[in-house]
C-alpha cells in the first residue's frame, strides 16, 4: 500500500499496461493529485526500465548465436550418440519382448548381473602382483592417489589458514585470555608454517602453479602472524586486515577452494 492506501500492485499493472483503459484513466487522475503515488510510480518505473536494460543484453547475446545451425548441432549430440542410434525395425521386433516388458527385461538383467557379481566375489582370486612377486599398482593409479592427497592437503591448509586469519581479525583476539594473548594463535601459525613446508613439494610436483602462488601469499601472512607477540595492538590487526584486503586474499582462497573441491586441480 502507498501512504494514500492505494495498492502498489495497481501501479505495477499500470506501468506494464495491464490495466484496461478506464482503470488506467482513473489511476492517472489519482496520480495527478497524489505525490506519494507519483513518487512510488517513478520508483517502480525506474526498476522496470532497469530490468529492460538487462533485457537488451539478452537480445545482444542472442544476435551472436547461429540459430540456424544450433538445431542440427543439438540433434547430432542426441541422435549420433551410440546409445541413441535407432535400431532397424527388424531388430526392434527381435527385442520387442524386452522393450515391451521392462520389468521382465530388468529381472533378466538383474539375474545376469547377480550371477556375474557372485562369480567375481566368490572366485578364488590371487593378489594382483607384479611379475617380480611384489604388489603392483599402475603408475596412473598412484598418480591419481598423489593428486588426491595434494588436493586434500591444500584444502586443509587453506581452511586452517582462513580460520586462523579470521580468529586473528576478531576483536576478541586482543582481549585478555584471547587467542593471541595466551599464545595459542602463534602456535597455530607455527603449525601452519610446518604444514606449508610439507605441501610445497606436492604443489611443485603436481604443477599446481596458481595454488602454489596463493599458498605462498598465505605463508607470508602467517609468518607475520607468528611473529606478532602476545601484546598485539589494534594497529597490528588493522595492518593484517589491510594486507588481506589489498591482496584480495580472501577471494583468492575461496576461489581456489572451489576449484579444488571441483577436482579441477589439473588445470590450475
Amino acid at each position, binding site marked *: 500500500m502507498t501512504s494514500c492506501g492505494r495498492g*502498489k*500492485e495497481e501501479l*505495477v*499493472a499500470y506501468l*506494464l499496461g*495491464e490495466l484496461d483503459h478506464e482503470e488506467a484513466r482513473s489511476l492517472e487522475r489519482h496520480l495527478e493529485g497524489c505525490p506519494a503515488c507519483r*513518487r*512510488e510510480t*517513478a*520508483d*517502480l518505473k*525506474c*526498476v*522496470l526500465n*532497469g*530490468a*529492460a*536494460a*538487462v*533485457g537488451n*543484453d*539478452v537480445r545482444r*547475446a*542472442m544476435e*551472436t*548465436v*547461429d*540459430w*540456424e545451425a*544450433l*538445431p*542440427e*548441432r*543439438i*540433434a547430432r*549430440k*542426441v*541422435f549420433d550418440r551410440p546409445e*541413441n542410434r*535407432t535400431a532397424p525395425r527388424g531388430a526392434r521386433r527381435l527385442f520387442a519382448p524386452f522393450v515391451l516388458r521392462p520389468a521382465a527385461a530388468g529381472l533378466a538383467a538383474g539375474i545376469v548381473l547377480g550371477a556375474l557379481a557372485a562369480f567375481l566375489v566368490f572366485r578364488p582370486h590371487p593378489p594382483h602382483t607384479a611379475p617380480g612377486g611384489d604388489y603392483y599398482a599402475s603408475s596412473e593409479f598412484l598418480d591419481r592417489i598423489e593428486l588426491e592427497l595434494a588436493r586434500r592437503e591444500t584444502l586443509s591448509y587453506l581452511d586452517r589458514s582462513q580460520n586462523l586469519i579470521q580468529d586473528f581479525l576478531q576483536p576478541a583476539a586482543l582481549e585478555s585470555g584471547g587467542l593471541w594473548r595466551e599464545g595459542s594463535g602463534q602456535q597455530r601459525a607455527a603449525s601452519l608454517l610446518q604444514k606449508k613446508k610439507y605441501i610445497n613439494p606436492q604443489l611443485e610436483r603436481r604443477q599446481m602453479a*596458481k595454488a602454489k602462488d596463493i599458498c605462498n601469499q598465505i605463508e607470508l601472512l602467517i609468518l607475520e602472524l607468528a611473529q606478532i607477540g602476545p601484546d598485539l595492538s589494534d594497529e597490528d590487526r588493522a595492518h593484517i586486515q589491510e594486507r588481506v584486503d589489498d591482496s*584480495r586474499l580472501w*577471494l*583468492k582462497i*575461496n*576461489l*581456489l577452494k*572451489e*576449484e579444488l573441491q571441483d577436482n579441477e586441480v589439473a588445470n590450475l
Partner: protein
Amino acid sequence: MEEREPARNAEEADLLVRRIQDGDREAFKELVGAYQQRVFQIAFAFFGNREDAMDIVQETFMRMHQKIGSYRKGYSLQGWILQIAKNLCVDYFRKHYRRRREHEAGVSLDDIQVPAEESVSARRAGELKDLLSRSIRLLADRQRTIFIMRHYNQFQVEEIARMLNISPGTVKSLHFKAVQNLKGRLSPYLGVSR
C-alpha cells in the same frame, strides 16, 4: 534467424512429439528451432552470460528427448519445455551458486591479479548493469522465474500461469514481490525512495 513458429495447437504439438518418439530427427530439429530462443532467454536472464545459457539450451533439448516418452498428450508443449529449462536453470544455479557469487563481483581466479583499467563512468555503468542482473539472480526461484518469463520472454500472466501450473493471481503476486524486492535492492544505487 527468426524463431520458427511454435506448434500452433495441441494436435500439431502431439503430432510433432509422436514423430520425435518415432525417432524422426527432422521433427526434433523443428522443435529445437521453434523453442531454442525462448529457452535461451530464460537461461541468459538466470545466469547473465551466453555460455551458460547455451549449455542450458543444449541440455534442455537433450533432456527433453530423453523424457519424450513422458510427455502428456494435450499438455502445453511450450510449457513442458520451458519447465524443463527452468528446472535445469534452478538446479544449475543452486549447484554453482557460490561460484556465481564470486563471479558476480566481476572476477575469476585467473583475472584477479589484473587490475581493471576502466574509466570511472564506464565502471559505474557496468556496475549498474551488474547490479541489476545480480539483483534478478538473487530473487527467490519462483519470483525470478516469473519475472524473467514476464519481461524477457514477454509471456502474459495467463500463459505463465498455464506453464507453471499455478493461478494467474499467484503469478501476479509473485511478480509484484519480485518487483518490490528489486526496487528494495536497487533503491540505494538508483536514488529512488524505498
